[in-house]
């Protein structure tokens, strides 16, 4: 399946707002909710909750997209978001708030870069991670 690139940025904008609310309220349960949203988005682009909101309420009011993009990069970045927010959720819910704050802040930087600039940090991390893993394999 292919995606409207504006949908990814719309989702990143909602994610940014939710992550700001997590930081301000310090709510582990809100962090958990966002973790679930990331998990669904990583598993399936079709059922990503914010993407469904975009298709239902926003896309019909817009012109059709000039081009569509592959779903894999978006799903991969949702997986990266999931990893960060899972750590944040555990931090907040176990009372190690500093861990929650730092992990949420990293996720917010990534989501905001995507929403405001269209820059997909999760996608960029992919090659970096692969190269580092490859180097470690060679040296060990």
């Amino acid at each position, binding site marked *: 399946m292919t995606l409207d690139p504006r949908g990814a940025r719309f989702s990143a904008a909602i994610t*940014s707002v939710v*992550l700001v609310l997590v*930081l*301000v309220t*310090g709510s582990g349960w809100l962090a958990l909710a966002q973790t679930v949203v990331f998990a669904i988005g990583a598993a399936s682009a079709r059922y990503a909750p914010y993407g469904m909101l975009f298709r239902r309420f926003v896309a019909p009011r817009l012109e059709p997209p000039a081009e569509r993009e592959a779903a894999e990069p978006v799903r991969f970045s949702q997986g990266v978001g999931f990893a960060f927010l899972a750590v944040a959720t555990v931090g907040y819910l176990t009372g190690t708030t500093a861990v929650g704050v730092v992990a949420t802040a990293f996720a917010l930087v990534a989501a*905001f870069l995507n929403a405001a600039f269209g820059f997909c940090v999760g996608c960029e991390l992919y*090659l970096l991670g692969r190269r580092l893993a490859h*180097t470690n394999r060679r040296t060990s």
Partner: protein
Amino acid sequence: MHPSLTGLVVAVVAIAVATGCGLVWRAREGRVRPASGGCAETLAGLGVEAGAPVTLLQFSSLYCAPCRVARAVCADVAATVPGVRYVEVDADRHLDAARELHVWRTPTVLVVDARGRVVGRAVGAPSREHVLAAVAEVGSVLS
């Protein structure tokens, strides 16, 4: 400090950092910069043909939306400018070459001259104008 105030300060700092990174990234993205180096053997292993006047060698990866944009631009330049070849490789399958050529991000487009030297490098999807200018520069050195 009150916890919610700490959270608010962290949120503002995170957004400021992201904005700074975004502005720097946008300014650098897609520019073809002069570069040097490149081992002829490595390049040949990636499919760069010796003697081709200009080769645009693109490193791509699966999880990379801008790679499609870079591909469209470079393939179009190769199709319209005589003497330009376009080669795309999956960085994932050529991690040793990626390290040797200092490729950290996809898409990275390397401009390779006829002697198998890397003379230009663009990180991120380059604009058509930038690629044409880089190609013209290599051509003018040759002639």
